């Protein structure tokens, strides 16, 4: 029984960070509105969204896949200097600039861009 408990504890410690796929979002909104909320009140928006799974609708501005890094899909926000950056662990080669997408991911906060991690496309 002791061994079983240790195994369970080790298994719990070894689990990978959760991904957004299969998670119910705590909020659904447009990429433009998400950025605006952070620009209006970074503290309040941070409390509302950081660490939460949120679902964002938007237009793809671009896809970036640096060697060895994550695949990042940038969503338009109406602000040329800021985007909603959605990080994926897998290829997003099917996405092209101008296409409409719905993405859900864990919000890491606002750093000029709003950053979503461990994202999944919503069909």
């Amino acid at each position, binding site marked *: 029984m002791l061994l079983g408990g240790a195994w369970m504890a080790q298994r*719990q*410690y*070894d*689990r*990978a*960070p*959760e991904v957004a796929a299969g998670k119910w979002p705590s909020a659904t909104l447009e990429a433009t509105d998400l950025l605006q909320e952070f620009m209006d009140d*970074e*503290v309040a928006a*941070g409390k509302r969204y*950081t*660490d939460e799974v949120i679902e964002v609708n938007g237009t793809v501005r671009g896809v*970036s896949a*640096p060697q060895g*890094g*994550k695949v*990042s899909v940038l969503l338009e926000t109406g602000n040329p*200097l*800021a*985007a909603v*950056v959605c*990080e994926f662990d897998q290829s997003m080669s099917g996405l092209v600039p101008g296409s409409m997408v719905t993405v859900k991911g864990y919000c*890491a*906060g*606002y*750093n*000029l*861009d709003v*950053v979503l*991690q*461990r994202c999944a496309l919503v069909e």
Partner: protein
Amino acid sequence: MRLPQFVHVPFLLLLPLFTHGQERYFTRMGEASFSFTTKMGEVQAANHTATSMFDPNDGSIELSMLMKAFEFEKAAMQDQFNNELMESDAWPKAVFTGRLLGISDGVFSNPRKLSFLVVGNLTIHGTTRKVLEHTSWVVGEDGVLHTECRIKVVMDDYGITVPTLFKDVLPKEVELYLALDFEKL
């Protein structure tokens, strides 16, 4: 020096897009990472969304990254990093503001390899410390500027308290590796 609870860094929004001299450079996909070895194995963390602005006219460089954008292999490590070490809810960003030393006009205009010292202020966990480090640069044929830098971060210097439980496990300092691919704004 402790900064206010939230370090808002609107540096890019405040800067004009068009300036005299060479154009400014920007990246939103900067890589920041660190690793260390414990009795339980290698711990690695990486952040791929550091934003940075570089002005080749005066060598000034600014960089900002979200602490919660550092990803670990294990969720428990990520939770401990954010909740028990960095207190990321209170201090959500790390920020560097500095300047390259000894640059000359047009030095980034042609493809070449370069190295400079960078001096500046690094703010982590709400505490600011002066840093002086070597940086290497590659000016690419395509105009992209690639730079790398390693910064030694001593936990005590930034007021980061290691819980007693982890005192014998975690190192007292880590090396923060930065790799940035700048493109013209």
